[in-house]
């Protein structure tokens, strides 16, 4: 009982410290608020289920990212959520202040959303990890591909973004 309570406490503290990962992943794979909440909750459930096997000598955030991304991709692929349209959620994606500097931020936010939406689930995961400034080694470990493959794919994403912006499709 005491061990279980300790584990709850440890889990809660770690989850609280790294909760940004849950939000980032939920935002990346769901644009509708209700879906985002469902996904965030499902990620938390799976994290809790897997926590007993978590090896504390390894990075918690890497472990968390793997679970969160696996849950998110499965969540999006499930029939329940596949059919949903993805309306643009203004509350999440718009910057509320409208001074000049925020127009650039708004523009970046819109490009980010459109670019994310145009990618398949695995490339979306790669983009998220890159933008979250994870190292190539981390990205390779989380996704399970080689570091050189990560570098190649990031190069392609960069080119794709440039092309999309130049063509006005993003």
């Amino acid at each position, binding site marked *: 009982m005491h061990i279980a309570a300790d584990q*709850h406490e440890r*889990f809660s503290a770690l*989850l*609280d410290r790294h*909760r*940004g990962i*849950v*939000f*980032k992943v*939920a*935002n990346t794979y769901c644009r509708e*608020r209700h879906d*985002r*909440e469902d996904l*965030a*909750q*499902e990620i*938390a*459930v799976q994290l*809790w*289920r*897997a926590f007993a*096997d978590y090896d504390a000598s390894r990075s918690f955030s890497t*472990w968390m990212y*793997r*679970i969160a*991304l*696996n849950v998110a991709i*499965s969540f999006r*692929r499930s*029939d329940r959520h596949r059919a949903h349209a993805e309306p643009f959620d203004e*509350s*999440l994606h718009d*910057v509320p202040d409208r001074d000049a500097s925020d127009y650039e*931020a708004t523009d*970046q*936010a819109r*490009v*980010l959303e459109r670019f994310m939406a145009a990618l*398949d*689930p*695995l*490339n979306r*995961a790669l*983009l998220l990890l*890159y*933008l*979250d*400034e994870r190292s190539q080694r981390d990205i390779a*470990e*989380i*996704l*399970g*591909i080689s570091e050189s*493959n990560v570098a*190649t794919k*990031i190069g392609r994403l*960069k080119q794709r*973004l*440039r092309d999309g912006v130049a063509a006005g499709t993003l």
Partner: protein
Amino acid sequence: MELDDLKPALKAREARSMTALDLKLAQIGALEKATSRLRPLKFWLIVQMLAGVVFTILFASYWSAHLDNVPLMLCGIVMHAYSVLLIVFGGIELSMVNRVDYAAPVVAIQKQLARLRAWRIRTQAWLGLPHWILWVPLTLIAFNVLFGADIYANAPSVVAMFFAVGIAGLAVTLGLLRWAREPSRKRIGDYLDDSAAGSSLRRTQTFLDEIARFETD
């Protein structure tokens, strides 16, 4: 605009979502409750296997007791074989489900999940479509066990009619599925696909191809 220019946008989005999503992520009680909701899949697979074991015993004892009556013996053997399939398919799927470890690398797990999904879609069809035929031996056995009647011995034409109905039903089901998948009937096809295997299987295969490209590119 360069890819790195989007990093602030990701951070800003995360900051907004922190307040937008009213989550109680760390409430262990709620998590445990939700975790228990995820168990039905394994539960139903175990039920399927247990049912398979019970049916295997029942039908094995039935056909071995009717060695002198070939039609009834064959009915028992067919049902026995189907019961074994229930156990085998349930066991394979359960072992696939048990091997899914969400903490493993994303590409490996997504591949595993896609294969599991493809397997489920196929086995559902393999286990479901034969019902059009299996109801006949099951009916013959049921009448024999419950009423001591041997339908085949007394009215073989009725059994032939049963089979004709089953084969026709199977043919119509397969034909309907094929007909609905013609591009000109996309809406009907999509509707049927929500509950049938074809499109789900294609989507799963497409995703497996995507994974393969992602791994090797």
